[in-house]
């Protein structure tokens, strides 16, 4: 919680200072909210209404208060109430940021969640087999593929997938359908982005798992487990994999949190209206409140994911105390 306040303060500081450093005055910022060819008095009026000329701490207080208690904006022709969490008022859309953002979260969550399951299962499985069959044909091929997965950019693999499966053979369409509307179509339409995103990450995870597994299987306690007369399968999965997976869990939490804040490249490639595409649009239009909202949302997810990881870590490794 404290972390969230700190993050929001830092975010705010950055987004407050950036325009100032770029030479923008409160007057210039206010000008963005008024229509084309405004008269100076209109802009001054807006500056006062948005509180842009107030001292920085006061503005930050308003910003925080809006998140917790909501805010009412009288920017446009009518009053717009913005219930909590109110992340500000968008310049380009002339409406509060939060509802815009919220409508995009299911898309990103579906994309990130599905891909995460896919990459975790495939990455770990490939990594384990590779480690156990080190130096064999399987190991070489899968690690070569993993290298490809890590190096190939998403917009490249994504285009290829789209070209083959969507345009040429027309097997998979990519268009977001709510999971509550039609779960089957939801999954089918997300297959390509999932594969595309999971390819990148599972490559990474396969390499990580392989390295972790190789290290773990050389540990003394693995030798002890074998000395007890345990079956090799038990040694690998009960004693080896469990220890090898803990560091991967940490990275998984970070990656998932990061992705929930917007899978920018994948969403752009597949034209999925998620948080990532929202971010791109916000950046293109230099809509500072929107960008700020995305950053806060992303940091929220990362912090939550990290907290979950910490709790899980303590559950897995008895040496860790919360």
């Amino acid at each position, binding site marked *: 919680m404290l972390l969230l306040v700190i993050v929001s303060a830092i975010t705010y500081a950055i987004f407050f200072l950036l325009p100032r450093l770029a030479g923008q005055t409160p007057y210039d910022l206010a000008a963005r909210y008024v229509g084309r060819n405004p008269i100076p008095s209109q802009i001054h009026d807006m500056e006062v209404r948005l509180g842009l000329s107030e001292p920085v701490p006061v503005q930050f207080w308003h910003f925080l208060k809006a998140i917790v208690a909501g805010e009412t904006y009288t920017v446009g022709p009518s009053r717009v109430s913005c219930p909590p969490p109110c992340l500000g008022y968008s310049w380009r859309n002339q409406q509060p940021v939060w509802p815009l953002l919220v409508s995009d979260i299911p898309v990103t969550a579906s994309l990130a969640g599905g891909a995460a399951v896919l990459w975790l299962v495939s990455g770990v499985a490939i990594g384990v087999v590779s480690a156990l069959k080190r130096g064999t044909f399987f190991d070489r091929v899968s690690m070569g593929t993993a290298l490809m997965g890590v190096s190939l950019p998403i917009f490249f693999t994504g285009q290829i997938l789209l070209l083959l499966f969507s345009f040429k053979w027309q097997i998979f369409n990519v268009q977001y359908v709510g999971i509550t509307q039609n779960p089957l179509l939801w999954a089918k339409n997300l297959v390509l982005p999932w594969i595309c995103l999971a390819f990148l990450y599972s490559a990474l995870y396969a390499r990580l798992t392989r390295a972790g597994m190789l290290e773990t299987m050389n540990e*003394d*306690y693995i030798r*002890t487990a074998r*000395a*007890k*007369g*345990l079956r090799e399968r038990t040694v690998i999965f009960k004693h080896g994999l469990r220890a090898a997976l803990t560091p991967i869990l940490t990275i998984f939490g970070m990656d998932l949190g990061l992705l929930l804040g917007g899978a920018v490249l994948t969403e752009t490639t597949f034209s999925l209206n998620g948080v990532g595409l929202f971010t791109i649009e916000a950046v293109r239009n230099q809509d500072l409140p929107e960008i700020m909202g995305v950053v806060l949302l992303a940091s929220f997810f990362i912090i939550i994911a990290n907290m979950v990881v910490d709790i899980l870590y303590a559950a897995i490794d008895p040496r860790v105390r919360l």
Partner: protein
Amino acid sequence: MTETGGADVSERTGLRAWRAAGGLRGRQPQTAEALAPSRPDAMLEVHELRISFPTDDGVVRAVDGVSFSLDRGKTLGIVGESGSGKSVTSLGILGLHQYGRADISGQVYLDGEELISATPERVRALRGSKMAMIFQDPLSALHPYFTVGAQISEAYRIHNKVSKRAALQHAVDMLGRVGIPQPAARVHDYPHQFSGGMRQRAMIAMALSCDPELLIADEPTTALDVTVQAQILDLISDLQREFGSAVIIITHDLGVVAELSDDILVMYSGRVAEYGTAEDVFGRAGHPYTWGLLSSMPRIDEARAERLIPIKGTPPSLINVPPGCPFHPRCDYAGMTGGRSQTEIPILHEADPGHLVACHLTAAQRDKLRAERVRVTAGEDA
């Protein structure tokens, strides 16, 4: 089997009996008869064990033709510097040398059953039940994520069909027997909640949970402080008496083997340098390397001013073992053998009955040097 008079053999015990029964045949080319244990009554007989690891730099001959035997209830001490092959020997006996990456040959008879040619599944079934091992560093040898009780009962449940509850009760009993206070409560602790000595006790409890007939302790006390060392050694010999197991103690600490061992095997560079009863090896040491080990050991009954004499140089790389006697570059007496030490691998031969030494020095030279040594290190009780 070479017969040297049945009555005579049965009267001798342990090592001497094995020698008398043709144990030395180990150096000769393997024949069909070598595939049967030469002493079927021994708990363990290792015959010409060779373990090598092919690496990018060459073949590492970690164990190069090691033979010994061990009776029930007896203790063998294997002594040597780091990298002399003592740990690999024991891992090879248990079939724990790296699967597929090491070449192993020779024979290991456990209670008459050959293990090198046995299926991995058979060796696995024996491992932990009939033969068990205690490892050097109990903190890294115990799994950090499982409770001590879970790890001990797991070992028990592999070889005994009992419920989890019964196995846990057995773990509590075992912890109590190795002297851990409040075993019923401590059984739920994790290894990191145990002290070093308690961890080693838990390790011993785990190894002994299935009443193994052969127990191999690989440097069981190196990671412990001195007072705990003594306790652990006492514990091992007490439990040995109680369970009647044969024990192999692997160590670089001659004090440890002096205390516990019936027989001593001195290893150097993957080969046997000297092998005999504890009295032979300590009292009538025949190999210059053993002399070096003895002089580098502090002795309480000698004058304080006496400086410890380290063995000069370092052990050879196991990839490029020096030609001839592997010890000759470090040996003070290698010049006395007329060049044989530099060119010819010394053969393990009897210096005294049942006392084997692999050295080119003649018996006369050895006696003379030993007498001089006694004069130099005054106080030797030879």
